[in-house]
Each structure stands twice: as C-alpha cells, then as structure tokens.
C-alpha cells in the first residue's frame, strides 16, 4: 500500500513538472503582450524596457528556469495587465469557482441520484425511458446554450432571476442549474447502472426473499453498495466542473478562475495564465489522486495491479 502511494505521488510530481513546461510554452506561444500593455505611441525602447523588466528578453530556457525557481517559492510573477501578483489574483477568483462547482455538484446529486434510483427500480417503464431521455439531453446540451436559454426564460421573458453577476444567493440559481443539469446527466446514468447491479446482487435478492421492506432494501442496502463508485465518480466530476465552468462563467459573468483565464489569454498575461492553469491543474490532480487512493483502499485489487 505504501509503495502504491509513493508510486502514485511520484507519478503525480512528474506529471506536474511536465505540466509546468507545457503551460510555460503555451503561454509564450500566445504572442507578444507589449501592444496590449503599452500605448501605440510607445517607442521601441519602451517596448524593450518592458520585455527586460519582465525578463521576456532572455532565452526561453532561461526564462523557464527562473519561472520554475519562482514557482517553487510560490511566486508566479506579477500580472502584466493588473500589476499585482498573479497568484493573488487567481486566488481571489478561485473562491467563486469553487462555490459554483460545489453548488452545481449539489444540484447534480439532488437531480441525478433520485432519477437514477427511480429508473433502476422500474426497468423498462416509461419512467426509465424518460430518465434516459433526460440524461442524454443533459449530455448533449452545451452548457453555454443551456445557460442562454435559462437567461432567456428566467431573466428576460419572466424576469424573476438575475441574468448574471455574483454576490447574492439568487445569482447562484441559473449558473448552478446550468452546470448541475449537465453534471446530473452522468450522475443519473451512473446511479442507474450501479443501482441495477446492486439490486441484482445475491445479497439484495436474499433480503427480498426474507421479506424485508422494499424501501429499506433500496435505501439501506442497495444504495450503500452502489454508492462507492458513485462517490468516487463525484470526486472526479468535481474536478471536471472546476475546469468545465469556463464557459458557464463566461455566460453568467461569474468572476471565477475560468473567466480570469480567458481574459488572461486574450491579454497575453503570461503570469496569470500560468498561475491559473497551474492552480486548476493541481486541484484536479489532487482530487484525482485522492480518488485513486480511496479506490485503492476500498478495493485492494487495484493497488496490486
């Protein structure tokens, strides 16, 4: 077990190191930031000074070494655009993103779990068919379109909810439903599949024979058996939501990391791009790692393979 843990940690660190290269190169490939931070009146000397100030005039491999050294100290550099530490800017934006992902996750569970269980209990019924339709719709609707349609209905046609922005509970409704609906589709299908399996298991069949009330069987035993893959999947889904929120954040003007990253890319703000991507990636990787470890603990076959 300890060896498995160490191997996974080691692999994660190697992956992280590769990521730094990937991010660093990607950011630099996006182009020259000078026309975006300096006015058109600026002279060539001004531009050269800017590049020198941020070390952009040095060979790329040297820049990378400096970048890596600073990152290890937690320093992601100063934003070209906002002249504040990039890491602080990203940190300020991660709160809204985590909140949105969390609330969306909750929506996904509240929608997906009951639907999946209901469908598993009545295979072949119209209810199961409806749930199937719901899930495939959820998978197929791009979040930006869901969001726009929700805005159209609930903020423009019947103005009951704010179309965008951040701050109040009402602001959460539309973006969280948008993301939650999307995530609920896979939660539904997963719950359905695992519940079906659990209901078929000898254990549950036996309980049925023993005459234990159906409700109790479902809630207490079948669900418990089905919950391990569901819970681990939710963990992964949370990671996906963190990154997947980019478009939703854009649609609802949500001040999160996704928005910040898109802006930073458009502004050629390398330090912010690097900090935002690194932070998201580390979060996602940590979640994946924890999920993997959980799986290994609960299912010993994994760590041996």
């Amino acid at each position, binding site marked *: 077990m300890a060896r498995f843990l160490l191997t996974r940690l080691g692999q994660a660190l190697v992956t992280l190191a590769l990521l730094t290269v990937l991010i660093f190169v990607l950011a630099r490939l996006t182009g020259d930031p000078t026309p975006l931070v300096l006015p058109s009146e600026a002279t060539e000397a001004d531009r050269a000074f800017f590049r020198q100030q941020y070390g952009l005039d040095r060979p790329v491999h040297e820049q990378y070494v400096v970048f890596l050294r600073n990152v290890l100290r937690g320093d992601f550099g100063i934003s070209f655009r906002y002249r504040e530490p990039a890491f602080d800017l990203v940190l300020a934006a991660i709160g809204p993103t985590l909140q949105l992902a969390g609330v969306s996750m909750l929506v996904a569970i509240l929608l997906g779990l009951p639907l999946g269980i209901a469908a598993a209990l009545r295979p072949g019924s119209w209810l199961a068919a409806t749930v199937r339709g719901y899930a495939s719709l959820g998978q*197929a609707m791009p979040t930006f379109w869901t969001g726009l*349609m929700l805005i159209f209905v609930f903020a423009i046609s019947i103005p009951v909810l704010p179309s965008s922005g951040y701050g109040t509970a009402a602001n959460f409704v539309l973006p969280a439903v948008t993301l939650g609906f999307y995530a609920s589709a896979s939660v539904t299908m997963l719950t359905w599949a695992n519940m079906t399996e659990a209901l078929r298991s000898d254990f549950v069949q036996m309980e049925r024979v023993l005459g234990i009330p159906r409700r109790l069987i479902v809630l207490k035993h079948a669900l418990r058996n089905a919950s391990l893959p569901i819970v681990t999947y939710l963990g992964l889904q949370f990671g996906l939501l963190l990154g997947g929120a980019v478009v939703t954040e854009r649609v609802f003007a949500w001040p999160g990391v996704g928005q910040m990253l898109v802006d930073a*890319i458009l502004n050629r703000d390398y330090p912010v791009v690097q900090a935002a991507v690194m932070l998201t990636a580390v979060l996602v990787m940590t979640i994946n790692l924890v999920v993997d470890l959980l799986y290994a603990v609960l299912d010993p076959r994994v760590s041996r393979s």
Partner: protein
Amino acid sequence: MSAAAGERPGDAGGLFGGRIRAGAGRPPLFATAICLLLVVAALGGGAIAPYVPDEADFTAILAPPAWVEGGSLAHPLGTDQLGRDMLSRLIAGARISLLTAGAAVLAGGTVGVALGLAAGYLGGVVEAVVMRVVDAFLALPFILMALAFVAALGTGIGNIILVMMLTNWARYARLVRSEVVSIKKRDFVLLARVAGLRPLPIALRHILPNALTSILVLGVLDVGRAIILESSLSFLGLGIQPPDVSWGLALAEGRTYMTVAWWLTVWPGLAIVLAVMSFNALGEWLKAGFDPRGRL
C-alpha cells in the same frame, strides 16, 4: 493514472459511465437517421441550401421564422443580423461542425492509438514517458488547454482541428495502452512472439485489431464531444471564424440579439443538441454491442 482508471466507471470518455446496455439489441433508428442526414448535409450542403450561407441581404435583416408574424416562406427559419438565411447557415454549419469534429477525432485517434500502442507494447521508459505526458494532458481541463492552444496557434479550421486533436489524443492513448497491456498477455500474442515476429508486425497485426472495437466506440462517442468543444470555442470567440459558419459561431454571433431575435440562438443550439444526442446514442448502442463488459 494506471490500469485502475480503465475500470473506473465514467472515465476514459465513457460519457454515460458505462455498463448501460438497455436497448442494445436494435440500432437507434432515429439517431442513425439524424446522423445520416447530417452527413448528407455536410457532404451535399451546397446543393440543398436555398441560399449562399454567407450572402448578406441588407433588405431582409432579422426576418423572423415563417410562422411568426412578419416572417415569410422565403426564409423558413428566419434571417440573421446581416440578412443571411438561417436554414442555409444551419446546413453550412453542419458541414463545418462535422468536418472539424470528424477530423479531430480521426487525427486525435490516430496519434493517441500510435502512442498508446507504443507505450503498452514497448513498456519501460517509453511507457513511463508517454503515460506521464498523457497524465499531464488529462490533468488540464480540455477547454482550458484548447483555449491556450488556440491563442497560441491562431484560429481557423485547420488550427481548430489541430487544437482538438491535441486535446483529445491523450484519452485514446490511455485506452489503447490499457487494452494492449491486457492483450499482450494473451496466448496468440505470446505465440507470435515465440514464432519470432518483430514488435511492429505483432502490434499492428495482432494487437491493434483486437483493440479496434474499443477505439471505434470511443471515436463515435467522441464526435459528440468534439462538436461541443468546437462550438464552445467558437462561442468564446476563439473557434471557427467567418466567413465559415459553425453552429457555435452562429450562436455566439446571435447572442447579443437574444432579446430581439430568439431564432439566432435557438436554431443553432437545437442543431448542436440533436447532433450530439444522435452521435451519443449511436455510440452507446455500439458500445453495448461491442463492449459488453463496459470497460470504456
């Protein structure tokens, strides 16, 4: 992520988390029909479309659909902000959306399969390196990576396809590697080895065909995903650019008009949903047939 990942439901591109086999018996007729229709529209779109999709008509701006007051049969689905026929644009959009999605899946699949095959079969350093790169690519949410790539490489169809390839090859590599690792241990491969065949022929002739069904299923499921990715990029303004038309682009350009002309956002959105649902249904059906163990 190791072999464990392949067993985890809902991972590695299994959009529905695997193991659902309901309706595996008969093909989803409606979805297949839609897919075929889209392919026809993509191939012969120019002949069907009533108008040239990017021809502006400044006398017919924002004409509503035929059945809405003020609409006419000349533009059954209405016109956009430059007076272009929505129906013709949707048909033209099918072409671009399918082309980019198809090409991206094909290219990503090829690269991923090649690397996955190499990693799985050769093992050792190659495997370690490839799999860590795969992990790095998978740790980044694909839309973020796509955004950075687009900003770096620029927009345009060719670049969008390249970007989509770069963002999806890793999943194929991971799938193929895990397939290969399991196939490698089977008797016929060991036999081929004993018979003195060299690695490349073994990989191509004996291992690849056995992994092909999984790859195919992942590929079909990926088309829907690719359509959504392309439309999301276009929606953010970093995807397909005019005068090409994609559904995502049409949606993005129509967005500001939502309060005055709903049809600019509703039609392209419906087209995306219908297309993705159909490809997903087809993929699910294939998966149920070819992959009863639900490893995808």
